Each structure stands twice: as structure tokens, then as C-alpha cells.
């Protein structure tokens, strides 16, 4: 952990003593798991802190830990970047299926599209989002494809032609 990451962690821990659940470090990256109710305040604090200035929400993405057997099932990862210190810090919020996460669009306007994408592909609702609609998939799409339990390969081919069904009616039908 480099000095700036350590300082960030120290400041967050002092400001929000009850919000930090876990701190992970891997390959020089620090991920702070925070309580989901406090995520908006933690983001605002890191953005406005004059020493750290994490002003750019570089990325926001979802992960479904279902296949890894972790509980709670979904993770939402906030990737904050400081244009002053050139350092990154990762925040993570874990939620169960159906649970909502407070939206950070009021802190970072850029979260709008990102949160819509996570909502679209994972089905995690964001509370307080101004315009929570599907973004990449059609509005009438069923399910959330980036979930690990989303069925793969069940889409029937639109045009199929088989000589067997053509020659012997009724033969190929049970094959689908």
C-alpha cells in the first residue's frame, strides 16, 4: 500500500468508523468494502477532500459472485481517480439479489450511464437514480445477461433449414 492509499484509508476510517467492512489489497490496488448505506457519503467525502481530491469516477461496474459462492451475491465497484495525486482507490458495495444501492449520480454525474448499465445487465436497482432504464438491451428484454445464472444458448435460430425435416415431415420436429 503506497502512502496515498494508506492516507485515504486512514481518512475514511476516521470519518466513517462504522462504514468500512473489509480492506483488500491485490497487486497494488486497494479495495475498501463499505456499508451500502454510506456509499454516497464516502464518495462525496473523497471527492471534496482537499488533500485527496478523488474527483473522477473513472469506472463503476458490477460483479456477480454467484459462481464463486460468495455472500452477498453482487458487488458494485466504484473506481475513483484523483487528478491531483494520480492514484486510484476502489470502493465496493455488496448486495443480495433484489436489494438496491444508493445512486451516486448526485455526487458524480458520470455515474448515470454506468448505473444504468449495471441495472440493465445485473438487475441491481439504484435508489435515487434520475432515469433508471435499460441502456444496452431493448426495453422488453427479459432477464439480466451478466448474471452468472442467466441461461446460455437457448435462443432458437431465426432461420433454420434441414433436409431431414424437408424430406420426411415430422422427423426433425422433436429435435427442435
Amino acid at each position: 500500500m503506497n502512502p496515498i492509499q494508506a492516507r485515504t484509508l486512514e481518512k475514511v476510517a476516521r470519518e466513517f468508523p462504522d462504514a468500512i467492512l473489509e480492506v483488500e489489497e491485490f497487486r497494488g490496488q486497494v479495495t475498501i468494502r463499505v456499508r451500502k448505506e454510506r456509499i454516497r457519503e464516502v464518495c462525496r467525502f473523497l471527492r471534496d477532500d482537499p488533500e485527496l481530491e478523488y474527483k473522477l469516477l473513472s469506472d463503476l461496474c458490477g460483479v456477480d459472485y454467484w459462481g464463486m459462492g460468495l455472500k452477498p451475491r453482487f458487488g458494485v465497484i466504484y473506481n475513483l481517480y484523483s487528478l491531483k495525486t494520480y492514484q486510484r482507490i476502489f470502493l465496493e458495495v455488496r448486495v443480495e439479489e433484489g436489494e438496491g444501492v444508493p445512486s451516486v449520480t448526485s455526487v458524480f454525474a458520470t455515474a448515470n450511464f454506468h448505473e444504468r448499465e449495471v441495472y440493465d445487465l445485473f438487475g441491481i436497482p439504484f435508489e435515487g437514480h434520475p432515469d433508471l432504464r435499460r441502456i444496452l438491451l431493448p426495453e422488453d428484454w427479459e432477464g439480466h445477461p451478466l448474471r452468472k445464472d442467466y441461461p446460455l444458448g437457448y435462443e432458437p435460430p431465426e432461420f433454420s433449414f434441414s433436409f431431414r425435416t424437408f424430406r420426411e415431415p415430422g422427423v426433425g420436429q422433436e429435435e427442435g
Partner: protein
Amino acid sequence: MAFVEERTKERMVINMGPQHPSTHGVLRLELELEGEIVRALRPHIGYLHTGMEKTAESKKYIQVIPILDRTDYLSPMINNLGYCLAVEKLLDIEVPPRGQFIRVMLCELNRIASHLVWLGTHAMDIGAVSVFLYCFREREKILDLFEEVCGARMTVSYFRIGGLSDDLPEGFTEKVWTFLREFPARLQEYEDLLTKNPIWLKRTRGIGVISAEDAINLGLTGPSLRACGVKWDLRKANPYSGYENFRFFIPTGTHGDVYDRYLVRLEEMRQSREIVRQAIENLPDGPYNADRPDVVPPPKDQEGKLLAYGRDPEIQGPEDMEALIRHFKIWTEGFRPPKGAVYQAVEAPKGELGYYIVSDGSAKPYRMHIRGPSFVNLQALERMCVGHMVADVVAIIASIDPVMGEVDR
């Protein structure tokens, strides 16, 4: 008179796209107009969604590379670099200097090519069709270089995890030199056509202005952010792949309008040329692949025979059995990085391109998220367009240079 005023105050909602020549692909904009003035703008995306992030979850790490050529199809090299660096971070691999220099050289050539497409289409959208033809002439030469190096012009997949798929072909650097020698004159030609052109100035100056603060809040990155005066480039701020060895400067603008974005990108092309020149002049000898037999497939000789690690390639012998086994294992089983999550960002022509990869210890990425700059930059479109004319929307879209393959993924 009163009637006319009443009519213009009436708001009209019209669709621009998804099939519109100036939306650079299948971007659909819902414009709310008051006469000719844009009052609100809502982008609708997803027409090109192919589920690349989902596809990647069922591919081995190395098989993901060809998918990424197709995200931002104008800068395949840089897409591949970002992904390879992310997986290398996961595996804790450092590519040797020769590999790094070749990567930097090709990435910067790719940046020039991508900016040339932007310049050509941007100028064409505003009405200067001839610039498009000139730009594509130069881009063609860069694509020829790519073809020489890996056999493909756009879907390159040249960078591999741990290095490159092959060394540079013989006589390649001379060909790059030829390009570098004639490029500044060509660039001057485009500048002569546009930079002081009164029509160009009228169409671009003071159009699509965004302040630095708004831009950062909206997540704008790359040349569009630098045009607002923010001196931030990932190649300098968090150097990767040996960028700390190169000398170049970051051009910035002052007004944050379409014209400044144009000037910033033009200067970036000059800087990229400078980086390519330094890369060729200082191209080190030695291996181009990392010394990791569990990740990098064994090298081959001219006839395609697999060579043993550490053996002099001059010595021709029977095919090495160890190498064959390792080759087979890498291509059938892949490799298994440790559990964990990494994020690696690179400076793509459009902005920050990042890959967030979660590994569960298997041979396939558990989750791969692409942070596409075009996707994020598109959000700033509304802030830039509101209050301008419909015709300016065309200029503003071109100035943030979205590639829909990356927006929709």
C-alpha cells in the same frame, strides 16, 4: 410576427439516427428542438450490443484478445495492449524492453491512424469532403504497416499476454521511417486546409463548450478533457508499458470547444510521431516475450517448428518434445492466474480505456469489464449541445469521436 414566435417556442422532438451518416455508427439521439435550437438531448445506445463482456467469460484468457479488436475497431492495438497489461498485472509478468518498445511504437501508429479517421470524418461532417480522402490515404499506409507486422489490417490481435505473437518482420523499421519522414508534410497539408479556414473556424469556435469541472464530473477523458485545459494523460500520469522512457508533451486547450479539441488532437498526432521515432531509434535487441513458459507459447523457427526455450534458434534440430507439450498445454488448457481483481487503464485515442478483470483462479476470466472511453464521453454530449443549432450537434458528435463498437460492446 406573434404567430412565428409562438411557433418557434413550440418544442419538437425529433430522432437523429440510428441510421444517420454523421452519428458515426448506430447512435440515436432524441433531440428536443425549439426551432433550430437544441433544448434537450438524450442519447439512445445499444444497437451494436453484442455482449462482449459475457462472451469473454466463456473464453480462455488468450481467446479474449480477438474479441477486443472489435470493440473500438479504430484502435485495435491499444485495446489489445490494455487487456494484455491487465492480465499481465494479474499474473505479475513484466514484458522485456524490446516487447515494450514494439508495443509502444505500434500503439502510437495506431493513435495516428485513429485520429486520422476522426479528422477525416469530422471534416466531412462539416462539409470539407476532400480532407477525408487525404486522411484515408495516410491511414492506409499505417494499415499496410499493420498488415506487414501481423497479417491483418484492423483485427490485429498482435499483442499477446506476455509479449507479442511474433517479432517485427525484416525491414519493417525502414518502412516506418518512410512513413515518418513524409507524415509531417501531410499533417501540414491538413492544417493548411482547415486550421485557418474561415468556414471551419465559424463552425467550430465557441461550439460545444464545456468547462473543466463539468467535464471531470461527467467523466470526460482523453483529448476532449485536455481541450478544457486539464493536463492529464495516463501515459504520463501512470506510465505503463515503458512510456516513462519516452519524451513527449501533453497538448492542452483553453476553451474546451470543438476547435480546441481539433487542435489538441492534431498536436497529439505530432507527439505520437515523435514517440514512434524515439521507439525506432532506441529499439533494443533481445527477447520480446516474457520468460514465462507457463504463459507464453514456445517460439517457432522459420518452418513453424517449435523450439526449446533457451536454445539457440540457429541450431536446427528435431522438434523439441518439451516445447511441443508446453505449446499443446497452453493452447488447450490455458493458464490459471491467482484469485483477485485488477484494473488496468491505458490512454486510448478517445480517452481512458480500462479493463477490470476478476479472476477466480480458473483459466477463464470470471468477469471482464471494459471501461470504454466512448461510452462515458457520450454522456457529456447533452451538456455540450444544449443551446446550439442542430447543425452544430453534428460537429460536436464528431469532436468527441465516439466509436459505437466500444459504446455498446
